[in-house]
């Protein structure tokens, strides 16, 4: 009798472990889909844009820029106090301006997402934090992040659904 009970218990434990693994694989697959599934988007027709950016210790004006994917973006960059530079994360784009001397550079906004632009010339104590943001098209990674968050909550609920925790409030 005792042996029978023990073997039933073992079988139940085995089944519960299998279910947990299946759940983990399913959640991992969903997470990968959310992170990497290509999302077909209707992108507006690319246009040429001229954007003027002023650099003053330790801020860019404007510090937030939105363009569409594929746009040909010309940056007119001028420093208003000391020498400043601008470089955009993920793009091979860099300009340096002496005070009052505008410089221009052009790049094609090929990659979608949010990119920080930074001062590329040491300009003072807050130089490492002189940052702006460029959005190219919709910020898909933010959307993916929110969806992954929803999956995380669902996964947390399901991972404890069959355990004693939800029934008794005690850890299994």
């Amino acid at each position, binding site marked *: 009798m005792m042996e029978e009970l023990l073997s039933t218990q073992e079988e139940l434990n085995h089944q519960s472990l299998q279910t947990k693994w299946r759940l983990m694989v399913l959640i991992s697959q969903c997470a990968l889909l959310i992170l990497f599934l290509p999302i077909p988007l209707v992108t507006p027709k690319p246009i040429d844009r001229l954007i003027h950016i002023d650099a003053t210790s330790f801020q860019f004006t404007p510090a937030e820029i939105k363009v569409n994917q594929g746009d040909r973006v010309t940056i007119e960059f001028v420093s208003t106090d000391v020498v400043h530079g601008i470089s955009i994360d993920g793009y091979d784009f860099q300009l340096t301006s002496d005070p009052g001397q505008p410089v221009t550079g052009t790049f094609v906004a090929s990659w979608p997402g*949010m990119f920080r632009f930074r001062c590329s010339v040491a300009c003072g104590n*807050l130089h490492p934090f002189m940052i702006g*943001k460029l959005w190219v098209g919709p910020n898909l*990674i933010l959307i993916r992040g929110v969806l992954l968050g929803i999956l*995380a909550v669902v996964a947390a*609920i399901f991972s404890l659904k069959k355990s004693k925790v939800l029934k008794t*409030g005690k850890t299994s």
Partner: protein
Amino acid sequence: MNRLDLTRTRWTNFLIRNRWPQFLIRAITLAGFIFTILAGLLGSVVGSHNFAIIFVWIAWWTALKLFFIPFGGRSWCSICPIPMPGEWIQNGGILQPRGKNFGLGKRWPKFLRGRWLQAGGFMLVGLFGVITLTSPSVTSIVLLIILLLAFVLALVFERRSFCNYLCPIGGFTGLYAQAAPVEVRVKNPEICSTHAQKSCYEACPWGVYPLALKSSANCGLCMECLRVCPSDNLAVNLRPWGSDLGPETKHSLDEAFLGLVMVSSALMDSAIFLGPWGQLKMAAYAIGTGSWFLFAGLFLVIALMLVPGIYTLAVWIANKLGEQKMNLRKALAHQSQVLVPLGLTAWIAFTISFALAKFSYVLPVVSDPFGWGWNLLGTVAKPWVGQSTLTSMLLQVIVLALGLFWSSRVAIKISGSLKQALPMIVFSAMTMVGMLWLLIG
């Protein structure tokens, strides 16, 4: 749950029990600490060219959040140089176990106990963070004050009073050590209960009695209890992450306050250091001016009113939805466990964005620590401008999602029902979305 006792393996047992390996590492960290103070005081005023700024705020601060805490809990505390000089005086020797020697040995005042002062210290770091993180001399002065304060307090008060009640980093590591996969615990409680001498408690610089140890928040992993136990009854266990979080563990209101300060600070630092708002950065930097007071007011409103207010509301609703009601004070303390994985992952995500983009500064300052134009190791080259890559953004998304998964699980585990856990899950989700927006939005 399963545990792997490191004292059962010969070489790890040797490394843990022998005082020499730990002393050698601490001697190196103490030398590095003093060198950092000197570099900050004597070296270049440009932060990116000074060892003090790059090593404290880029290398060490990053290592603490990405390595020491997630994998070793309070392992940094076990090699921290700050309490060393005071402890040598207290113990009357460098490799001595704790004993009654020099110092007044007074007990820390009861009304100052808990994590309140550590939380206050961490808020001060946030309020003056921009100047501390960018000025080598200010960093050095802060380190020097901490070193002197720890020394003086060791002469007046017993054990590691500074670490236990004042050190903001001690508060940070202690809080998140509850989630870490390392613990010191007794092997067989019955052996301890029959041992009248309590030599482990006498030897513990943290004032912890291992038999009563239920949470790793207060254990500094110094290993002194293992070294003096006559029955070899203490284990250093590797354990599943988050083992100290659950319905049975006890938590206090000061822990909740500390957890909220940490979450608020992660949000504020993300806005200040990684956001595009130049005026916010300038205000945080211009200490003593009207704009700084405005910034300080905003910081304090967020850290002391807004985030704690939303948290209190979530706990209050959760308490109302529960079958067994507890008073609000107890509920605030009990639910604070949710803040542990939430805050830890928020800080890790912030660090990925903040420090990894600036890691290129580390090698040049090793070669020229004072910024005097040296090139000792030939690694001085113009550091590349740091970038947030798509990989680092994906990593941040994954870390924050894991944090939400973990905190939601903790919320469900410590609540009586899913319905009761929902307000805390919503609070966690709001924090996660806030961090996402600040870091990659």
